[in-house]
């Protein structure tokens, strides 16, 4: 079960690297980052953590890892962060919201839409937080 999840998220993130035309020597790293972010998300949600918080933590660690990789391999950070973020995008929730809207169940659609919006916000916040940490470390060193 967990091996299935790890393998699928590794392959999916690496495949996204290909779609975004990432340099060849970065594809394996893209897969790894996506796999770790998704693994953290799955473990947290299985422990009963709210999916918004789980997304925030997963996005934060994806961003931190991407920063480390960007330093190590001297490449722009987006090369690594983009494919790691993709699995966390609330596609399923947004889809459910839209499906209920199509079926004229606007109250449920609204609830789900808000949830999708919150999760997108969590992704953004996770990216911001890691950047803040990075800037702070740089300032302290100087």
């Amino acid at each position: 079960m967990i091996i299935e999840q790890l393998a699928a998220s590794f392959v999916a993130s690496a495949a996204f690297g290909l779609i975004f035309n990432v340099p060849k020597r970065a594809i394996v790293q893209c897969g790894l980052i996506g796999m770790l972010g998704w693994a953290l998300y799955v473990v947290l949600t299985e422990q009963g953590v709210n999916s918004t918080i789980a997304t925030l933590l997963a996005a934060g660690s994806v961003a931190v890892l991407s920063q480390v990789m960007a330093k190590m391999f001297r490449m722009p950070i987006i090369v690594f962060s983009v494919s790691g973020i993709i699995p966390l995008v609330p596609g399923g929730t947004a889809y459910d919201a839209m499906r209920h809207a199509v079926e004229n169940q606007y109250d449920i659609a609204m609830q789900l839409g808000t949830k999708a919006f919150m999760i997108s916000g969590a992704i953004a916040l996770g990216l911001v937080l890691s950047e803040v940490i990075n800037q702070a470390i740089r300032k302290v060193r100087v």
Partner: protein
Amino acid sequence: MTQSMATDYYMTAELCLLAGKIIMQNGGETYRVEDTMKRIAEACGFPDSQCFVTPTGIIFAISGANPITRLVGISARSTDLNKVTLVNELSRRISEGEWSAAEALVRLKEIERARGAYPGWLQVASAAIASGCFLIMFRGGWNDFGPALLAGGIGFALLISLQRLVPIRFFAEFLASMMIGSLSILFVRTGIGQELDLMIISSVMPLVPGLLITNAVRDLMAGHLVSGLSKGAEAMLTASAIGAGIAVTLSVLN
């Protein structure tokens, strides 16, 4: 003397604008465009340069004895992070003094002309595989892996070919997601696939504007409000186009 000074100004502006344009066109962040242009200008001996960067155009100015201001418009944007990485490397080489401006300009033109790092069929194949993997990640059964793989691959292939044919933005995304929705419904009706919802969600994932979302956040954080908001709007519209395509299919066919 004045003649060569003037060419210097001209050459530097040309170099900076081309580097900035390539990064912006291929999915780089706004701050990276500014940073790269300033670094190149500094390496060419012009520490006093100004730039204004938006997703649709770049204005670049050098002050000094021969002030020069130039503008480049950006009409089409795509995602090619390999080119962004190459230009990033090039700007580092210039500032370390490894390459002269003239050499760098030749190399930049090569980068601009180059095709994507991977052929189209490989990208379609990866979109198909990614769709299948997403189905497994979203706890779908292996019996739906094949149908999701097909729907995702065909949808992405349609997106790429439509983007070349029709210049209207968001229309390609709309039609591609309609195609994915119809295919998934067809698979479920004929009994090839079981779970319609999971199949649609995972096949639609390759169309999700992930790079735009990431870049919009990074731009807003760096204080590039104009770029951040316009990239955010582009991401929202793309997501709405995908949603609308699925919604239309569901309400007509289901």
